[in-house]
């Protein structure tokens, strides 16, 4: 079974995003970038499937400019067998990404595609579901457990009321939630080995997908700041303040 893992280069999760002075976007100049945390979980899950003998090949794919090859090399160092870089300088939307990925799905015919449930930059939570729609496959989103059987995959999903398990016909699409696994770190020998693994580059505009924007970013603003609070001395003062000042209890 072949597993395809789309990944994304995003702002490092420890870095606080700042809005540009001209309010056109978030300022990413000289900001530390990393693999989206949910994508790391997706790579880890695919590698575990390979280690368990369920998967035979793990292919990582990303869409972005040249720098995003760094994250592909990380995926290769973690254990992916090969990588595909769909190169573009454009800032793409989830629908474009899903359409480009559907072309790679056509080309690679993976039985399972595992993606992060959302990227921590745009926070859209759309790509996996859209890819499932475009490829006519079932979707197991927000997975906390993935159990591959003959012809089906059982996915336990983190939902608002608890957990829900669904059975999907293979081929299928899975998106990862936080509790699916704990990703490993790449070892130095594996980082060296990753440099020799195959990485194909495809130009995004060669895939025949209309990449015209569907959403216009009008403006980006700082969120409203909370006015500074106070430190109270003890529980009695706290309760008093909540009763008389804040009037919330």
């Amino acid at each position: 079974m072949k597993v395809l893992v789309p990944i994304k280069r995003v702002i490092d999760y420890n870095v606080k995003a700042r809005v540009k002075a001209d309010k056109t976007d978030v300022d990413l100049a000289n900001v530390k970038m990393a693999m989206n945390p949910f994508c790391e979980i997706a790579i880890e899950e695919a590698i575990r499937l390979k280690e368990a003998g369920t998967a035979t090949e793990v292919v990582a794919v990303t869409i972005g400019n040249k720098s995003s090859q760094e994250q592909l090399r990380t995926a290769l160092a973690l254990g992916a067998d090969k990588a595909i870089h769909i190169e573009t300088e454009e800032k793409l939307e989830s629908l474009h990404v899903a359409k480009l990925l559907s072309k790679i799905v056509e080309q690679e015919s993976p039985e399972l595609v595992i993606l992060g449930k959302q990227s921590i930059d745009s926070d859209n939570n759309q790509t996996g579901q859209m890819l499932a729609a475009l490829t006519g496959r079932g979707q197991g989103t927000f997975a906390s457990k993935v159990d591959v059987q003959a012809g089906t995959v059982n996915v336990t999903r983190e939902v608002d009321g608890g957990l829900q398990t669904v059975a999907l016909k293979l081929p299928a699409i899975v998106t990862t939630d936080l509790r699916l696994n704990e990703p490993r770190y790449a070892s130095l020998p594996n980082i060296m080995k990753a440099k020799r693994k195959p990485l194909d580059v495809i130009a995004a505009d060669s895939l025949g997908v209309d990449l015209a924007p569907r959403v216009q970013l009008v403006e980006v603003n700082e969120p409203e700041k909370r006015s500074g609070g106070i430190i109270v001395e003890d529980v009695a003062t706290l309760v008093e303040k909540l009763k008389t000042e804040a009037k919330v209890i």
Partner: protein
Amino acid sequence: MKTLVIAEHDKGVLKPETNKTITAAVKLGFDVDLLLAGENLSAMSEQAASIASVSNVLIADDAAYANQLAENLADLVLSLADNYSHIVASATTTGKNFMPRVAALLDVAQISEIIDVIDADTFKRPIYAGNAIATVKSLDSKKVITVRASSFDIAQEQAPVAVTSVTGKGSVGLSEFVSEEQTESERPELTAAPVVISGGRGMQNGENFALLNGIADKLGAAIGASRAAVDAGFVPNDMQVGQTGKIVAPDLYIAVGISGAIQHLAGMKDSKVIVAINKDPDAPIFQVADYGLVADLFDVLPELESAL
């Protein structure tokens, strides 16, 4: 121009997210129809028909929709989409699951988790864990939108309107429901409670979360948790408040033993009043707290419970 809202419900009860999403939908400026898809819906249909500003309630009663499977639900919504310019649902785990599927099948973008409606095409939504607010304009002729319910008020009631049955294809044969594990709780739901008290890594283990019970009882509060507490296995995933968990905006939020990581703040910083209890005076949670108490939570919690 007309708007279709897909109702959020669970175990025969219409969720408050539905009413709040109606409020957002009304702001678009068009008539609003409400779609109720599931099984055995008659009890809920009158409740749905009584939400102010709803013009028609559409009922799709079929076992295939009982568990809100994305593949079946998206197909149903797609079959109704011709009649609507805007398709709207709440950004719950259900809405987040099926709505992007609807958008892709319609070949339009989805505008995720809006917190404000500027006009019928333009919306505000948080990005980067709420560290920036983007104003976005949809260029598609049909809009597919999910709504952060905590940013909108509950809609008023009205005299019940007409209820019409609709039928979809039912199961599209891609997925089946296997089982569910619902967390049983007598407490109000996190996303609807007026008061939320959450514990973090500082709680040290799952048993210590019992220290929050007495306070929650007295305040009628829901109990939440930080991602650190959920990852450590102290409490189940459905208690997580944060960027990738539940987004809450209660009147009072009490953070206990929570340091205040960016992704946690993203889930609670719109609360009206925030209280932080943490023994580390430098914890970032104090930067968003209205009232901070620098103390050991194991001393403070029993004291707080008896003071209430």
